[in-house]
């Protein structure tokens, strides 16, 4: 087994060697600009981009004309949210989102608040999910956008996107308004079968580097009919991407992104089964060997690869320091420069003390059972050692307060 072990796939994934192979010719040999209409270099690149666009669209059940290439999900989120608001409610309108969205969505919404827009931040339940009813309760005549992620990066909690899409569609018909539904599906695509029509989404952001493709490339799906979605231009220039995102297309990355989508479609079923098996093995292994552990995020309605666990009476950063040869991330304040514990866990009413001691394990298709067993043993040892150091553990045992928290149980 090779150390260190990578278990932070929600942060980024390695590029699949097959993806890398597919990208290679497009750097030095076939380097043309896909917008060059006058020669074979351009035509070749244009063809590659067109084929890639179709592959990517197929993964979502979309048509190729509905795919806009961007630099990644952050740009896609910005384009979707600002693009819709400025196009359909230039004088200000209402946006519905959730407190646990990615910063690319939250900070874009905060920016729009300074421009006169009103934003409703839905509070998730303690398992990290919002309901379609919560969305319905907040829709107003001037609501122009509902933006909710498919799956949360920290907890893996999955929102009921199809139900929410249906609600948005119903209200749009009833109110005859310009009301659209955007989802940041970055963490979910490749792990959850997704069809933009079945889910009734109008815009969808996703990124290549979370699914074994290269970094720096992503896409925004923009619905073309029922309804046709238009966006205010955010990047002015040569009018690429049907004037929705100017800039010379990044052919090698687009080809790599498409290869990653092709592989995701072909291998999703196997990968999901494998990831769920590994994740459950990890989670159960930890729960069997360590007491006073809390699971953050819904037990079943969550990504197959993600386990977010809080370890009672110890602090997350010291736990990570004990686990130096395992790459995971923590909701602990000490791991961020801000000294604030995870806002995602806070929004779910996870007490600060448990947010400090949370670890996120996000697995990928290069992990195996031997690694999982190693990690379980390492975690159990680290927690035991840190509890020996912990005055809070002593106090909880002495004051008999360990029953105050709803700890997770092994199945």
């Amino acid at each position, binding site marked *: 087994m090779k150390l260190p072990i990578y278990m932070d796939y929600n942060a980024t994934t390695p590029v699949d060697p097959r993806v890398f192979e597919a990208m290679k010719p497009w750097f030095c040999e076939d380097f043309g600009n896909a917008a060059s209409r006058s020669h074979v270099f351009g035509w070749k690149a244009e063809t590659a981009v067109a084929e890639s666009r179709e592959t990517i669209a197929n993964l979502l059940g979309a048509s190729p004309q509905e795919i806009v290439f961007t630099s990644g999900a952050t740009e896609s989120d910005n384009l979707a949210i600002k693009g819709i608001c400025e196009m359909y409610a230039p004088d200000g309108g209402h946006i519905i989102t959730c407190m646990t969205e990615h*910063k690319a969505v939250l900070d874009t919404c905060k920016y729009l608040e300074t421009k006169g827009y009103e934003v409703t931040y839905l509070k998730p339940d303690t398992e990290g999910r919002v309901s379609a009813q919560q969305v319905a309760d907040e829709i107003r005549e001037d609501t122009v956008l509902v933006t909710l992620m498919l799956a949360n990066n920290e907890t893996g909690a999955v929102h009921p996107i199809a139900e929410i899409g249906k609600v948005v569609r119903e209200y749009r018909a009833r109110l005859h308004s310009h009301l659209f539904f955007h989802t940041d599906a970055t963490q979910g695509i490749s792990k959850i079968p997704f069809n933009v029509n079945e889910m009734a989404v109008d815009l969808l952001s996703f990124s290549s580097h979370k699914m074994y493709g290269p970094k720096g490339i992503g896409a925004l799906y923009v619905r073309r009919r029922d309804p046709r979605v238009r966006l205010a231009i955010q990047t002015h220039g040569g009018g690429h991407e049907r004037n929705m995102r100017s800039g010379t297309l990044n052919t090698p990355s687009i080809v790599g992104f498409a290869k990653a989508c092709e592989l995701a479609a072909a291998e999703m079923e196997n990968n999901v089964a494998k990831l769920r098996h590994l994740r459950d093995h990890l989670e159960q292994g930890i729960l069997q060997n360590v007491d006073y552990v809390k699971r953050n995020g819904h037990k079943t309605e969550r990504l197959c690869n993600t386990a977010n666990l809080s370890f009672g*009476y*110890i*602090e997350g*950063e*010291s736990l*990570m*320091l004990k686990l130096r040869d395992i790459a995971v991330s*923590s909701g*602990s*304040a*000490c*791991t*961020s*420069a*801000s*000294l604030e*514990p995870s806002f995602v866990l806070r929004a779910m009413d996870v*007490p*600060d*003390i448990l947010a*400090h001691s949370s670890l996120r394990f996000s697995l990928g298709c290069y992990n195996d059972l031997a690694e999982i067993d190693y990690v379980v043993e390492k975690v159990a040892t680290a927690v035991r050692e840190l509890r*020996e*150091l*912990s*005055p*809070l*553990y*002593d106090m909880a045992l002495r004051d008999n307060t360990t029953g105050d928290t709803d700890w997770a149980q092994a199945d």
Partner: protein
Amino acid sequence: MLQYSEKVLELFTNPKNVGTMDGDDPHVGTGVIGSPECGDVMQLQILVDDQGVIQDAKFKTFGCGSAIASSSLATEWLKGKTLDEAMAIQNVHLAEELELPPVKKHCSVLAEDAIKAAIEDFQKKLEGRTDKAELHSPRCCEKLNDCEGCGSHGE
């Protein structure tokens, strides 16, 4: 996670003087500083002989690597010192010895506070007062904001 100095890593991996002493013993002073919500709680205890010299020191700490290293170092420094010498230990000395980065300075502040709280607790016992050491939660957060390099960083 920050890149720690070798000294922090060594003390974190092999902490010295972990444990607890009987808080009711009149020769023992106990200081508990920090708050769980802020992510740091230090419990530091000293055993003081009749000459006012610290014979032994123990700690238990809930916190990050530098908090654990700071408390471990503090207990090492306390042994053999008189109470006056112990009172003179400052957070900057601990921070320098451990090469703490600015964002971790508050860990050494907590350790200094824990030393002082333990000494105060012992002195109260000497004077026959019985009020116990308690968690100072607000104090921890104030310290965090005051402390250089903390509280001013965005994500």
